[in-house]
């Protein structure tokens, strides 16, 4: 526990000094704000830049608050997710490859503590960013389009955070298993591209962690979804399994540290 506290402080310090705690939340806030505002001004923008013929008007659909939050989720699922998991995919292996981890590995530490120090910091960063991002999106949506049930909103955010923990855990597992180039490649294939694949051919299955983000937003409209709980449970189980695999490989690959 003491080792965890010491290493957690070290990881926190690194993230702080490399400005991650500044730019990651700002990125998510930006992504969260941009859809409510863009959609609000869409008509004006099209008229201004579209060179539409005289008398031609476009009627844009009237968006419900849930639609805007769905659009923001789409932003988090692309740019936000990529940035987050690419960072996580380098957390364990980079230290090994450049040799800085050596001074930690030769000391009487538990590798579980080492793993969790990184897991805790990346997820602190992720959850903070997601909450601020959704908060900003909700704030603008409320001003421009109307509100949603607060409790449902909180449920949605919490549910989305479970998906984000799942995503960072996969990235961290790859980070423990492979060198950075490989771990980043696998992470990008499994997560951002996985999300893309899910959106293209996802109608063929109902329960999958990759569906959790969509299901989370659907909570807002309160439409009955018999698969939601199963998906949530599966995601949590997978996360736990991937954590264990991650710890295992953190220990196993410690000897590959550059001496």
């Amino acid at each position: 526990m003491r080792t965890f506290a010491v290493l957690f402080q070290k990881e926190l310090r690194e993230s702080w000094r490399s400005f991650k705690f500044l730019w990651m939340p700002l990125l998510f806030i930006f992504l969260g704000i941009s859809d409510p505002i863009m959609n609000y001004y869409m008509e004006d923008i099209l008229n201004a830049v579209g060179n539409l013929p005289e008398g031609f008007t476009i009627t844009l659909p009237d968006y419900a608050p849930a639609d805007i939050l769905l659009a923001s989720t789409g932003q988090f699922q692309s740019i936000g997710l990529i940035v987050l998991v690419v960072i996580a995919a380098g957390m364990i292996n980079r230290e090994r490859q450049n040799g800085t981890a050596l001074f930690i590995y030769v000391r009487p530490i538990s590798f579980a503590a080492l793993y969790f120090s990184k897991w805790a910091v990346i997820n602190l960063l992720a959850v903070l960013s997601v909450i601020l991002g959704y908060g900003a999106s909700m704030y603008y949506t409320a001003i421009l389009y109307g509100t949603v049930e607060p409790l449902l909103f909180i449920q949605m955010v919490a549910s989305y955070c479970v998906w984000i923990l799942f995503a960072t855990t996969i990235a961290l597992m790859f980070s423990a298993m492979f060198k950075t180039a490989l771990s980043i490649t696998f992470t990008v294939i499994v997560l951002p591209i996985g999300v893309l694949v899910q959106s293209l051919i996802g109608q063929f299955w109902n329960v999958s962690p990759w569906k959790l983000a969509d299901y989370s937003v659907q909570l807002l409209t309160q439409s009955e979804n018999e698969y939601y709980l199963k998906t949530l449970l599966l995601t949590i189980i997978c996360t736990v399994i991937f954590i264990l695999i991650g710890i295992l490989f953190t220990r196993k690959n410690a000897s590959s540290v550059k001496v």
Partner: protein
Amino acid sequence: MITVQHLTKNFGAQTVVSDVSFTLEDGSFTALIGPNGAGKTTILSMLAGLLKPTGGSVKMEGIKDIRKEIGFLPQYPQFYPWLTGVEFIELTAKLSGISARGARKEAEKVLEFVGLKDAIHKKTAQYSGGMKQRLGIAQAIVHKPKLLLLDEPVSSLDPVGRREIMNLLKQLQRGSTILYSTHILNDAEEMTDQLLFLKKGKVVEKGSLNEIREKFDVPRIRIQFAGVEEAAGYSSQTEWPTEVEGNVVYVYIKDHFPTMQQVMGELSNSPFTVVKVERDRLSLEEIFMKVVSP
């Protein structure tokens, strides 16, 4: 006392360390000597617990978790560039089990000892090569380990830096057992209790400097002449067994003969100009070449 028995390491089909055994007495200073690729770093890594041996064991009297009692300095220490010197040493001190309150104090103390007092609040990214080596030593000794493992502690430094670090290590020796690897033999010559010569993963020779020297020394007298012809002339004329190397002639001594006086007498009666006569001893470098060459 540390006992290493039958230590072996294979990487795939390749045997990098093969059946290495030795003991380190408490407070002793031992050098691991061998050419590049002889397995020095691999042995140190196994002792430090970084690599799992394929076979054999490392035991420290009365200690269970050997990692608590080890300080390790790699050949090219790499530091987190975003930490200051004192923050880094504090981190390593805490990880070695020093209390949060004591860690800061110990860190400052050890940084002063290695001569980094004025740089403790600088980021390690700004440290020079010599400063990094000092910082590396500081992290290795901050928790007062029983065994210090140093991988080529001075070979990347210039002569001045080398001297400073060796002086530091001399001061240290009072407290800990030290095992260090080197391929620079002058370092080893001056302060080492025990030498382990490594060749292709095997210990081919071990003992104190004197023991090894006695074993390999070829008694001979070295005579330097003014010119090459004179050396050749003397060599062809004398009755003793000789070997010529340019303007130098080696006269080999067998069963105490010839004596220095006999050679001097012979020289003073000869027409050749002599520059220098001395009882020749093999340098550690030459012994090394003898031990490790096939």
